[in-house]
């Protein structure tokens, strides 16, 4: 047991230890200061030339957003078309079929927005061509989009009034060549040498010791699993994601994948601190986020180790906690740790099945996604945190009777309106979506879809409600994990979550970038004794309170109907 605790302690310690120098490195990359990977410069210049990008061009926030949205639209169309016809394209040794339009719609969006809800299983629903050409590709570019979007807000923190926010394309390209590609390569090589497949051979067939004939799916998995974690994407190569023994062969790879998925979100906090030269501010953000994570993690570990009370009543031993949906080689501690970290950041890969988690753990996973700002995804975690910051500044300003100011700029009605709309739409999408699904389930159980509403849920009662709530929460948070018992590959879930995915991704990018763009232009007033400090514990507490009120409390009724009710029924 002790070795399981040292396991997660080292995973977290290593993450922070590596994130600090990585943060410094990322800051240097985006500030054009000398750094380790300057030898990539010629490749980048070639990319700019072939891509038709003028790297010296300065863009306004509107122009940057337009560029961001346009290129995302191109990827969406490309991915959608390829998935629709994958069955008749090459690199399909297992003869898997093309996707239906609704599934292709959902899947293309899902990978585009860094979410990776997967309403298909990798072994039977994708081909080697689409695993690499669509999923692997979108994993890189969506993570790079997130990082680039974060870079677009940096200048609003600097003590100089400016009209431009940088060049989206340059941020985007550098995020790939200097951060995502090298780190993914390292992780995928760790995986390869621990047994993860990386070849183009098709499915193998084996006669087992007991004489059963079984298939063994393989393929170019390692490369994709590398970027899957580095880019906080989370879409599995295999259906069972990182619980699959080829996707996550042993405890070492589990540690590597775990560190890999948290390292950029934490490093981005430090990178921001270095870029704007405000380390104390970065530490405040890191502190608030870490306390939030711990508050979710501790109850999860306790409830998983405690095991399932219903199984305890049957009289068997649960020395390793609740084992349904868990793998022996990871154990309950590393599984519980993974389930929380992967939901607070937007990865959503799983090494245990969340649907079989204990009710309290399920609630903590849901809360992690509802917040979306405790570390959060590649770049977008801080963007989510940013609108909480703006609202906190505004509320504290009102409380002490001063004009709200943030980094020397007045925060006015327009910025607050944008931040509030983004925050409110997110709760509306989750709760509205779940309500709609529950309404269909009750009133149209026999609707003629591939999976009828009456057959959607894999579990009855409160847990069934949690399955629907989880799906919409995951879609809105661009997380991608699921209570996978949900029968989600059908018309309703594919289109409904597809739309939620798009809004849940691009509103929280457009909102903060717009706010920051508006602020960056405003007159800079140097901070004085009359300025409310935004880098101390008091303000940190304020931000924390805002996050709790906006997310946790607004979702409380829904959580009561699902996991909380299940918890008390199981007691």
């Amino acid at each position, binding site marked *: 047991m002790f*070795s399981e605790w040292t396991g997660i302690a080292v995973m977290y310690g290593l993450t922070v230890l590596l994130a600090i120098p990585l943060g410094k490195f990322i800051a240097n990359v985006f500030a054009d200061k000398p750094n380790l990977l300057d030898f990539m410069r010629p490749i980048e210049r070639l990319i700019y030339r072939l891509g038709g990008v003028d790297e010296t061009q300065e863009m306004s926030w509107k122009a940057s957003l337009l560029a961001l949205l346009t*290129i995302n639209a191109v990827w969406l169309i490309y991915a959608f078309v390829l998935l629709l016809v994958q069955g008749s394209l090459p690199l399909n040794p297992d003869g898997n079929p093309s996707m239906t339009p609704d599934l292709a719609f959902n899947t293309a969006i899902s990978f585009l927005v860094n979410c990776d809800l997967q309403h298909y299983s990798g072994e039977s629903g994708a081909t080697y061509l689409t695993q690499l050409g669509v999923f*692997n590709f979108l994993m890189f570019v969506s993570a790079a989009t997130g990082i680039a979007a974060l870079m677009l807000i940096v200048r609003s923190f600097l003590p100089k009034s400016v009209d431009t926010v940088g060049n989206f394309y340059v941020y985007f390209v550098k995020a790939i060549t200097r951060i995502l590609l090298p780190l993914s390569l390292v992780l995928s090589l760790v995986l390869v040498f621990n047994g993860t497949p*990386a070849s183009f051979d098709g499915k193998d067939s084996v006669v087992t010791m007991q004489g059963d004939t079984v298939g063994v799916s393989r393929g170019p998995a390692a490369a994709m699993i590398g970027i899957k974690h580095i880019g906080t994407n989370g879409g599995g190569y295999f259906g*069972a994601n990182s619980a699959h023994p080829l996707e996550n*062969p042993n405890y070492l790879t589990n540690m590597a994948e775990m560190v890999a998925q948290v390292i950029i979100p934490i490093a981005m906090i430090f990178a921001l601190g270095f870029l704007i030269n405000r380390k104390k501010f970065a530490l405040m953000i890191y502190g608030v986020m870490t306390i939030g994570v711990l508050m979710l993690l501790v109850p999860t570990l306790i409830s998983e180790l405690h095991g399932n009370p219903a199984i305890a009543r049957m009289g068997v031993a*649960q020395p390793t906690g609740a084992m349904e949906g868990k793998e022996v*080689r990871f154990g309950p501690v590393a599984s519980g740790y993974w389930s929380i970290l992967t939901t607070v950041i937007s990865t959503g890969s799983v090494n245990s099945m969340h649907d079989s988690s204990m009710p309290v753990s399920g609630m903590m996973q849901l809360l992690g996604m509802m917040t979306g700002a405790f570390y959060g995804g590649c770049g977008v975690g801080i963007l989510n945190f940013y609108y909480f910051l703006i609202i906190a500044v505004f509320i504290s300003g009102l409380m002490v009777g001063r004009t709200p100011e943030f980094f020397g700029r007045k925060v006015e009605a327009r910025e607050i309106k944008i931040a509030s709309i983004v925050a409110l739409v997110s709760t509306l999408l989750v709760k509205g979506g779940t309500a709609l699904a529950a309404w269909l389930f009750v009133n149209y159980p026999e609707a003629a879809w591939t999976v009828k509403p009456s057959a959607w849920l894999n579990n009855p009662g409160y847990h069934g409600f949690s399955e629907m709530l989880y799906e919409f929460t995951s879609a809105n948070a661009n997380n991608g994990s699921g209570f996978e018992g949900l029968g989600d590959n059908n018309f309703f879930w594919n289109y409904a979550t597809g739309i939620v995915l798009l809004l849940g991704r691009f509103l929280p990018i457009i909102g903060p970038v717009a706010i920051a763009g508006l602020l960056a232009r405003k007159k800079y007033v140097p901070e004085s004794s009359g300025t409310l400090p935004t880098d101390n514990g008091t303000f940190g507490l304020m931000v924390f309170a805002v996050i709790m009120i906006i997310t946790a409390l607004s979702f409380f009724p829904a959580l009561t109907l699902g996991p909380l009710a299940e918890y008390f029924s199981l007691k």
Partner: protein
Amino acid sequence: MKTNLIPAIRLTVVMLILTSVIYPLVVAGIAKLAPGGGKGVTVEAKGRVVGYALIGQKFTDDRYFNSRPSAVEYNAAGSAGSNKGPSNPDYLKMVQARIDTFLVHNPTVKKADIPAELVTASGSGLDPDLSPAAAKIQIARIAKVRSLPTERLTQLVDANTNGPLLGLFGPSTVNVLKLNVALDQLR
């Protein structure tokens, strides 16, 4: 629109080549140096391939160390957990039935000693491992069926136990396939 669309398309093509062609080919190239050459590591017994080292197999025969229940019957053409919630009544009935079955096959074992992993399905449905406790609790049955002394079987389990990583991190595990291959080689 046009100012953005042309670079968007061109940049997409360039990035496709970099991330979807060059990157995976580099990984696949280096993988040829890894054990199994990037195609997965196989296990052989009696001169034939009996499985993949990392992929669990269905063992239900009393002569072998049994593996955990699986939602996909250990067919690695797919992978999945049961996704049963902890309060699902049908699921709890199924667990109860597995406990009863286990007790029938292992009459000397006390119910309170059965580790839950033996009556619950894994996340992947392909879990290759058992905890040492879950392997050892089956020794009495196997010793009887195979007429082997229990000490030899205990030694066998110990010899096939992989301790925590570097002795420090994570749980101890026993690879069931390798354990059963070794079991067949005992005489």
